[in-house]
């Protein structure tokens, strides 16, 4: 699961029949420097969401084939919003290291 910041939503009317009432988020996944600098994100992705994430929120995005696991019918998804993140604790390096 990668951490990403929600920056927008996608709506569409023509789509695969497996999709019904879904929300699609535009998400900027964090890169290795993002927790420190607040920028340097990876390329944006579109993620399926059924938790109700809003713009500006941080989310956990499950990718690859595991993204399809929560669905009961075969659904073409490769990014699934699996967690709305409340707090992030991050230390870039070990303060005890010599």
């Amino acid at each position, binding site marked *: 699961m990668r951490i990403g910041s929600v920056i927008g939503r996608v709506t569409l009317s023509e789509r695969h029949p497996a999709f019904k009432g879904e929300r699609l988020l535009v998400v900027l996944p964090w890169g290795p420097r993002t927790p420190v600098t607040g920028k340097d994100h990876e390329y944006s992705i579109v993620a399926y969401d059924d938790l109700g994430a809003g713009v500006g929120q941080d989310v956990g995005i499950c990718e690859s084939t595991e993204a399809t696991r929560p669905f009961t019918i075969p659904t073409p998804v490769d990014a699934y919003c699996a967690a709305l993140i409340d707090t992030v604790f991050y230390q870039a390096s*070990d303060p005890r290291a010599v």
Partner: protein
Amino acid sequence: MRLAYIRGYVTSTVKHPSFAGQRLLIAQPVDREDKPDGSPQIVLDPLGTALHEKVILCSDGSWARDYVKDPRSPARWWVMGIVDPEGSVA
């Protein structure tokens, strides 16, 4: 499987039900020079890993689903092993 350092954790109230009660650690994968390489990952922690420990991450979603006891879980990355600290092995 990838080498990574545990650099933190996240908390989440609204999440996929299969993550209930799990520690969600942030692991930063590293390259062969121990430099950060790629996005930090949120990982499951079956071993009880400490902050800043070097670990091996495994992306076997099948075992992750077994571990959280939910065949519909989107879980994928988990801590497979804790690397011995440098100098601890003769």
